[in-house]
């Protein structure tokens, strides 16, 4: 096992998906519901059963062209590095875009997305 610096990461989106430009970070939350099944027969300890899974996330970076339209369905490839297996892939919907225009820096765009369907998890 080895630690990994994030600067080799990437975000690809679109039909391809193709490499984005200006992006400098991304986040992903992959979650599973836990359904409570605690009953009188649980001996005073809560019990749960695995439920539905879902995923969502965000990415952000410098403006380099027009922003992605919200409501757009995109294929997503969220890369931890250029190494095969160090990426998370699936389809999602762009659910928000935020714009920041500071006087002392570059214009940035930030996006959130809602994943839909299967998420292929990193393997390496």
């Amino acid at each position, binding site marked *: 096992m080895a630690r990994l610096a994030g*600067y*080799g*990461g990437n975000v690809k989106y679109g039909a391809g998906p193709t490499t984005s430009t200006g992006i*400098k970070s991304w986040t992903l939350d992959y979650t599973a519901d836990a359904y409570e099944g605690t009953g009188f027969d649980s001996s005073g300890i809560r019990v749960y059963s695995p439920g539905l899974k879902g995923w969502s996330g965000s990415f952000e970076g*410098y403006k380099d062209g027009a922003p992605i339209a919200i409501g757009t369905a995109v294929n997503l490839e969220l890369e931890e590095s250029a190494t095969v297996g160090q990426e998370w892939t699936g389809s999602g919907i762009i659910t928000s875009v935020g714009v920041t225009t500071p006087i002392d820096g*570059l214009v940035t765009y930030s996006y959130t997305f809602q994943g839909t369907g299967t998420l292929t998890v990193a393997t390496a």
Partner: protein
Amino acid sequence: MSIATIGTGLKTRLDTITGLRVFAPNELPGSGNEPPMAFILPPAVEYHSDFAANYVLTFRVVVAVTQQDSPTAHDAIMAYMEPSGTYSVLAAIEGDRTLGSTADDVKVVRNLGERVWSIGGIDYLSTEFEVVVYA
């Protein structure tokens, strides 16, 4: 673009100021020449500003006006410090924010005031600018 190319792009902008002798980072002289002169010093570099490995350069531009500490020398210095006008360093640089298509954008961040700067053992009345280039 290479750092040297961007430095040359910066020089091209400063060359639009009449009478100013400009030296890019790759052509800095070992001694002073005839003022007024502008020296574009090799920049500080922030690497990996995004996943595409773009970078941010912070140049220091020193404008040396004269060896004399006189009222006219101070006036000359202030003409370069003005945010606009014929001798404005800010206006010259930001007049083309891509520096001749060598950068994404440029910003003259600040002027550091008047000071004495030594070139080849000779002191010049000078002023220094901090210029950030996104490439």
